[in-house]
């Protein structure tokens, strides 16, 4: 060849190749290294020769090299394009791709390992972005899967393209049933002119909110609030539509209950206020007061106070701020104390106790409230002479109080909601005075004690409310001595 010194060319090819070149012995020590690699590392060749190949890598890289790369190389003779980072004194590590080939001697033992190292800075950045994108997509997918809302992607024509588990629960249909099918299968109102109108608004970039009736696979209806948002394509055309559907039945029910509750609370609070005002005005007019008027005023004030306390307690419970001051109490004594003020002539009020005392750990004030609520209910919902029986016992790890009346009873269909907030048994209004919070508060207080409250009831024959409370844990170790 003309004008080219082959030796120089080969030397240049080796020293200034666009990649690092290095050869090392099986024990790791470097025997040859080119200028490119020496420059990348910022270390003179003399410093590199004799040092260990693995030491060119960052510490995590060495872990990977020793555990995976070196064994693989030893066993299959070559490894291609493994990602590593070169440790560089005073500089950021350099991402590289390393390819190695193992050379064997005549006896088949490793003699030398030759490697190429390519700069992989850009590639590593893309890979990292790809990995991050994948992680974000996985996280997002997890959120969508876990959501209670129906989340789906629709094509322009309203065909379902993705379907999450929430949609499956809300509409009672599987992904396989719904993919490629029109969304009007589950939201019948979203078809024809109405759908066209929705699409027109989406085309202009608007979001659309529709309250509509959905159709479950079983044929039942479900009230849903649907939010639609456009996904625009490269030419700003409507490309796809995201749809989020929320079951509004539960929310509507709560809203209705809250409205009813406010009306009822206003009514209940006004009654004692009216009585107080009446008696006070009477005293004002007469310029004198009667003993009975004052007693009524005091009683009504107490009632008002109780109602307000219930309201505050309910709001505390709602906000999970129910503080209990636990102490060891004798449940039998607490029951007797709660029964005493309710005893009247003409009613048989029995308290049956298994044993003399049963210790529980409870908040004295709250326990009194629970017993008071249940006992007052028993009195309120039964005739003036109907007997009431209270049983106190311990069974296993729990103490139990059962309060049985022979009153009007509770219809079976009302029992599931009995302990809900704002719930009052229909038709019980005549006897009831209160906010419908009593049993709700009772259940939440008992729950907070780690106990349970249950009811058995039959219309016309009476009800039995049973609460259980955990017995204190005995310290068994101290008994061993």
């Amino acid at each position, binding site marked *: 060849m003309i004008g080219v010194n082959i030796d120089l060319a080969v030397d240049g090819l080796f020293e200034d190749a666009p990649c690092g070149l290095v050869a090392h012995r099986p024990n*790791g020590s470097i025997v040859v290294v080119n200028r490119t690699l020496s420059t990348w590392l910022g270390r003179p060749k003399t410093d590199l020769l004799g040092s260990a190949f693995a030491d060119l890598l960052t510490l995590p890289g060495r872990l*990977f090299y020793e555990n995976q790369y070196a*064994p693989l190389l030893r066993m299959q003779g070559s490894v*291609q*394009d493994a*990602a590593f980072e070169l440790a560089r004194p005073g500089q950021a590590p350099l991402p590289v791709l390393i390819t190695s080939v193992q050379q064997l001697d005549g006896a088949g033992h490793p003699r030398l390992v030759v490697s190429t190292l390519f700069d992989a800075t850009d590639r590593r950045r893309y890979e990292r972005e790809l*990995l991050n994108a994948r992680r974000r997509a996985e996280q997002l997918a997890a959120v969508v899967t876990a959501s209670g809302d129906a989340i789906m992607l629709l094509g322009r024509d309203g065909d379902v393209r993705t379907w999450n588990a929430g949609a499956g629960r809300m509409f009672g249909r599987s992904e396989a049933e719904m993919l490629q099918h029109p969304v009007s299968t589950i939201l019948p109102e979203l078809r024809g002119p109405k759908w066209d109108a929705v699409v027109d608004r989406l085309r202009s970039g608007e979001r659309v909110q529709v309250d509509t009736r959905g159709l479950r696979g079983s044929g039942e209806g479900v009230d849903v609030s649907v939010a639609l948002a456009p996904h625009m394509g490269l030419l700003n055309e409507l490309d796809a539509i995201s749809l989020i559907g929320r079951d509004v039945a539960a929310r509507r029910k709560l809203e209705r209950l809250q409205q009813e509750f406010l009306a009822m609370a206003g009514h209940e609070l006004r009654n004692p206020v009216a009585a107080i005002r009446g008696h006070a005005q009477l005293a004002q007019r007469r310029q004198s007061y009667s003993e009975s008027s004052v007693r009524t005023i005091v009683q009504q004030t107490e009632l008002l106070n109780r109602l307000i306390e219930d309201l505050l307690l309910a709001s505390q419970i709602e906000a999970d701020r129910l503080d209990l001051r636990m102490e060891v109490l004798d449940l039998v004594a607490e029951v007797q104390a709660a029964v005493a003020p309710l005893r009247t002539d003409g009613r048989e009020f029995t308290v049956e106790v298994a044993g003399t005392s049963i210790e529980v750990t409870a908040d004295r004030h709250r326990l009194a409230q629970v017993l008071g609520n249940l006992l007052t209910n028993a009195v309120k919902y039964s005739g003036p002479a109907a007997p009431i029986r209270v049983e106190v016992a311990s069974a296993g790890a729990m103490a139990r109080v059962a309060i049985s009346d022979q009153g009007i009873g509770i219809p079976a269909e009302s029992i599931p909601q009995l302990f809900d907030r704002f719930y009052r048994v229909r038709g019980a209004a005549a006897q009831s005075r209160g906010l419908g919070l009593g049993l709700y508060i009772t259940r939440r207080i008992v729950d907070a004690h780690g106990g349970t409250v249950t009811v058995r009831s039959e219309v016309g024959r009476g009800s039995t409310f049973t609460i259980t409370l955990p017995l204190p844990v005995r310290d068994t170790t101290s008994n061993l001595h």
Partner: protein
Amino acid sequence: MDVIRRNNIMLSGPGGQPMLFAHGYGCDQSMWRFVAPAFADRYKVVLFDHVGAGRSDLSAYDRVRYASLGGYAADVIEICEALDLRHVVMVAHSVSAMIAVLASIRAPDRFAALVLLGPSPRYIGAEGYDGGFKRADIEQLLELQESNYLGWANTLAPLIIGDPEQRPELVEELRNSFCRTDPEVARQFAAVTFLSDNRDDLIHVRAPTLIIQSEFDSIASTAVGRYVHEHIPGSEMVVLPVSGHCPHLSAPQETIAAIDAFLARHVRQIGPR
């Protein structure tokens, strides 16, 4: 459950006293190819792959069971039970050394001796203990490992997207699959390997134990090997004048000699049954 298939168990040798070889993180039973055959004339040689590695049954992988080394130790005991192995000489590399420690504590009657190559009870440094690594190193290792699987898989879009349906077959076909370990499994196995702390378990080992330490091991240093030696009661330690974390690959003859010498002193040979 078919343990033989789950752990891809391979048997060789005439029977008699079993020698169970356990590979370390990042590889599979083929790691033992230069060492195990040397014992096949006298021992019943048992090779296996940890679940998730090599040709083990990937469908048996359970993220909860294998969230700690205890799950792998339970597998080892199940292998012994399935094959009715007794007086087992367990030869374990790297992370499997701690798996062997745990298995021998849980089922002391099964094991006649332990041979631990490059053991480390804890890779991350702690108060008064130099494990050699910081937590950040391990996190970077996980990232590097992911880069590697991604790098090799970059022509295989489904793997990147993570289509679980297609993963096992694809991994099988990868050119450089590092002993065919599944990427997701490798990720968890690496975390379990390098984030575990088994220092307190060492003292409970009752089996005669040999520690084989490579003199220049940047994963499990000689100081770490000595720590293991000092904490396993009555253990012996041999330092081989070689470098790297895999003396069974880089110095198979020396490794075989060390194992032989130890067993001759400590384990009564039990002939073929």
